[in-house]
């Protein structure tokens, strides 16, 4: 168990900088998920923690020891790779025990520890098999076993579930969570899948373009996204954004003469803002209702438990999640009701969150 401290870490390759000054504190025993689109530098950051990439600037410390100059094996990290990276010529037992063999652990103790790990991961019947004779989920478990056997201070996961099919992914997700509860080791998990991120994380780190956009619990990030990027990246379907200008009597939507009632606390008149609203927070009402916006239905997606309705709001795409028993047909006109308290505001220029409800919404403490 160890804490990880990341201070102003940068990474540049010959021509481009891919990580720009990341600061991050990971508490001992935390399960931290780094979430971001591909190319945002999340894997690079993980590999810098592991020691597989050199750190161009800044400092990474594990348990207070700066590890910038240490070899991967000296850092006490274990890593689970996206493609498992099992040694094809070794049996499952040899794969799991290889790090112990390198470390010179006696054969008897090695066998014992391999057995113990195999028991936890239910790999006992297949210890003699080669990786080629295993299914995807089993290979994944062998990769986990290989990481576990070293009893590392830190577990690093580099998109380990992205090669599995949907059902197995859900299953492995809960297994990883259970395993973490059992071992209680500090874990850093990189993914681009937000469902994975939300369900696994104690704390979520959202990255974009080599920078950390927001750090917080999954709930915080969902309820109070710190930037327009986080707002639209986390949550499915994505948060709806309407651009507009703040006026005395509400928000005037761009390219439109209509007004929308908004809370008037903290927003300067004349400011250009992006208003965000979760599809779940929009209510469908009869067209022309008081305070509602009229829109035309484009497409209805049936989810079973509810449905997603994509509407055209004067050229802007907008989605609504509803479980109500209304069945709007494509082409039909509907009314959209948006409550002021569900709105998020972001600066049109910087994308940063503009706080409106500071006083009224309780923020969970870190």
């Amino acid at each position, binding site marked *: 168990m160890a804490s990880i401290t990341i201070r102003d870490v940068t990474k540049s390759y010959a021509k481009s900088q891919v990580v720009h000054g990341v600061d991050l504190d990971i508490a001992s025993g935390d399960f931290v998920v780094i979430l971001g689109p591909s190319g945002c530098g999340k894997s690079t950051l993980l590999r810098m923690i592991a020691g597989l990439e050199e750190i161009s600037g800044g400092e990474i410390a594990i348990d207070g020891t700066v590890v910038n100059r240490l070899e991967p094996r000296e850092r006490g990290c274990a890593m689970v790779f996206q*493609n498992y*990276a099992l040694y094809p010529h070794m049996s499952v037992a040899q794969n799991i025990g*290889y790090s112990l063999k*390198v470390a010179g652990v006696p054969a008897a103790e090695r066998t014992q520890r391999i057995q113990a790990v195999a028991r936890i991961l239910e790999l006992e019947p297949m210890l003699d098999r080669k990786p*080629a004779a295993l299914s995807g989920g089993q290979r994944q478990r062998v990769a986990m076993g290989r990481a576990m056997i070293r009893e590392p201070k830190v577990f690093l996961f580099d998109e380990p579930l992205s090669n599995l099919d949907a059902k197995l992914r859900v299953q492995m997700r809960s297994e990883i969570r259970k395993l973490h509860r059992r071992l209680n080791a500090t874990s850093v998990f990189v993914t681009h899948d937000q469902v994975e991120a939300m369900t696994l994380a104690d704390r979520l780190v959202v990255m974009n373009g080599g920078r950390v956009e927001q750090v917080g619990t999954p709930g915080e990030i969902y309820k109070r996204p710190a930037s327009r990027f986080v707002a639209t990246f986390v949550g499915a379907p994505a948060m709806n954004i309407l651009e507009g200008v703040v006026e005395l009597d509400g928000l005037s939507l761009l390219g439109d003469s209509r007004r929308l009632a908004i809370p008037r606390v903290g927003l300067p008149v004349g400011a250009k803002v992006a208003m965000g609203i979760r599809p779940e927070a929009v209510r469908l009402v009869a067209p022309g209702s008081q305070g509602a916006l009229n829109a035309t239905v484009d497409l209805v997606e049936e989810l079973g438990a509810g449905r997603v309705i994509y509407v055209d709001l004067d050229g802007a795409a907008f989605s609504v999640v509803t479980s109500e028993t209304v069945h709007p047909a494509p082409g039909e006109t509907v009314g959209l009701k948006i409550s002021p308290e569900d709105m998020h505001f972001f600066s049109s220029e910087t994308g940063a969150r503009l706080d409106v409800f500071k006083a009224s919404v309780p923020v969970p403490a870190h």
Partner: protein
Amino acid sequence: MVERTPILNFVTHLVLFIGFVLAVAPFVIVAIAASHNLKDVNDVPMPLLPGSDFWLNIKTAWTTADLGPKLLNSFIMAAGVAAGKVIISALTAFSIVYFRYPGRTFIFWLIFVTLMLPLEVRIVPTYAVVANVLSPYQTILDVTGLSWLIEKISGVRIALSFGLLNSYTGLILPLIATATGTFLYRQFFLTVPDELTEAARMDGAGALRFFIDILLPLSRTNMAALGTIMFLWAWNQYLWPLLVTTDQSHATAVTELKQLIPNIGGIPEWNIAMAGTLIVMLPPLIVVVAMQRWFVRGLIATEK
């Protein structure tokens, strides 16, 4: 594409058959000639049915050319070259593929150039070096005037000399130093996923450990293929053993075959010569048959 038409089947089988006959016919003629007595083998045309003197001819060839020790020499040389090639090529390819160091490109090209300068091209300088391994250093001393200086000062005349003629080392070493195997390995190493290297680093394995524990076991089929090719190639070497073994004790079986070939004006014992040829052909044949399964896999597929 798989097509099944009787005519095409017939044509392809015909082509295969012609190829088979072309490949096997000389061998069959050698075998038949080796089984006749002196009179029959010199008949024109030579009878195409086997005669009865096969074992007698084999025995005569064996004793005349002293093939026992010669085959051993050949085997030591071919096995040495094959083993040396397999090891050196693996090491050089490992260095080229997995390490970034100054002068890497230069070394890569240096190795590549050896492909364009086979032994036959550089046979004179190679011979000179093998005759006295230290001669390049002697030359340096002479040209710079150092040996003259040392002689004047101490009265000792420097004559460095370390010859490898008539030794297994001299037979084997110059044949090892080419790049054919390096590129075979290089192509294979490039297909090994990076994640495997990284996993080994995370597991704490250093470069050499990774090479021995992971890379070499993965290249088994490559090693078998390269070893087989190099064994055959070295076994069939003629020019180099002929030059470097002035003494009979280190001569190889292939060069000794010459002893069996009738001289002009001598007795035309072609049956004995053919019997000797058969004996000398046998070991490479055994190696190919034994290694065939690995050999083919190593050249056409990469084990994933």
